């Protein structure tokens, strides 16, 4: 083995673990796709500045549900999945699809438009919907995969 290769095999404690270019690229591609999907939904179902921002609320709810499904599915069903799947679909696609900043800005704008009821409603309803959705997603994945496992065990 050449000295150069040996050098390469040494661990670098100063290096960021996990920040490899391939993972960053996967997150970037997923993020671009997620942002485009969100923009498509916002163009399809636009909400005015003084209206209740249902579209962003729905985007975030769907994204949280899918994140719960994805994370549990990857962990339980595909623990050996390619390491770029989770960065691509989770951190990238769903992370880029859902948005926290548009949520906070909707709340601010609703206060500015003189709709404090809508603002507080959006503030609280989003929290409840996001938490319920991610929990429901994780639970349904557990339920579906759990039964799948039991059937497999029984067949064996």
């Amino acid at each position, binding site marked *: 083995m050449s000295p150069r290769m040996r050098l390469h095999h040494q661990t670098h404690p100063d290096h*960021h*673990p*996990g*920040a490899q270019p391939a*993972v*960053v*690229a996967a*997150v*970037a*591609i*997923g*993020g*671009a*796709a*997620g*942002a*485009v999907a*969100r*923009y498509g939904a*916002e163009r399809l179902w636009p909400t005015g500045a003084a209206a209740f921002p249902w579209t962003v609320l729905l985007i*975030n709810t769907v*994204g*949280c549900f*899918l*994140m*719960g499904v994805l*994370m549990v599915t990857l962990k339980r069903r595909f623990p050996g999945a390619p390491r770029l799947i989770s*960065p691509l679909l*989770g*951190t*990238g696609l*769903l*992370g*880029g*699809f*859902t*948005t*926290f*900043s*548009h*949520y*906070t*800005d909707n*709340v*601010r*704008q609703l206060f500015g438009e003189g709709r404090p009821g809508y603002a507080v409603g959006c*503030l609280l309803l*989003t*929290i409840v919907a*996001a*938490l319920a*959705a*991610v*929990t429901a997603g*994780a639970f349904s994945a557990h339920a579906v995969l759990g039964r799948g496992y039991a059937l497999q065990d029984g067949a064996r």
Partner: protein
Amino acid sequence: MTDWLLVAAGGLVGAPVRYLLGVDAKFRLHTAFPWGTFAANAGAALLLGFLAEAVTDGELGNRLQLLLAVGFCGALSTWSTFSYELLTFTSARRVALAAGYLALTVGAGVGLSFAGAAVARAAL
């Protein structure tokens, strides 16, 4: 077509910045608290509040909004990762950590959104 490309370009940068903030925070701080996601969400809320007030109407303003507000800020910030982190905390019975993380993120996010807008109004 340009509209979609601008949003995609913003997302192409925003999401990996969030990811790298998370990796960096984990590396530097070694805490269970997801400072990376928090920083991404708080930073995006501040920037979007600023942009919403600072960017003017018209062709250029519209394009800047698509690139920076819809694409970059939208993808830099996240609800899905945020909610999954909260679920992991509550599943591990770390309810106080989850409640603190939720309250801090939402409080800082809304506060910074107002702060960004105020800075834009004062500066312009």
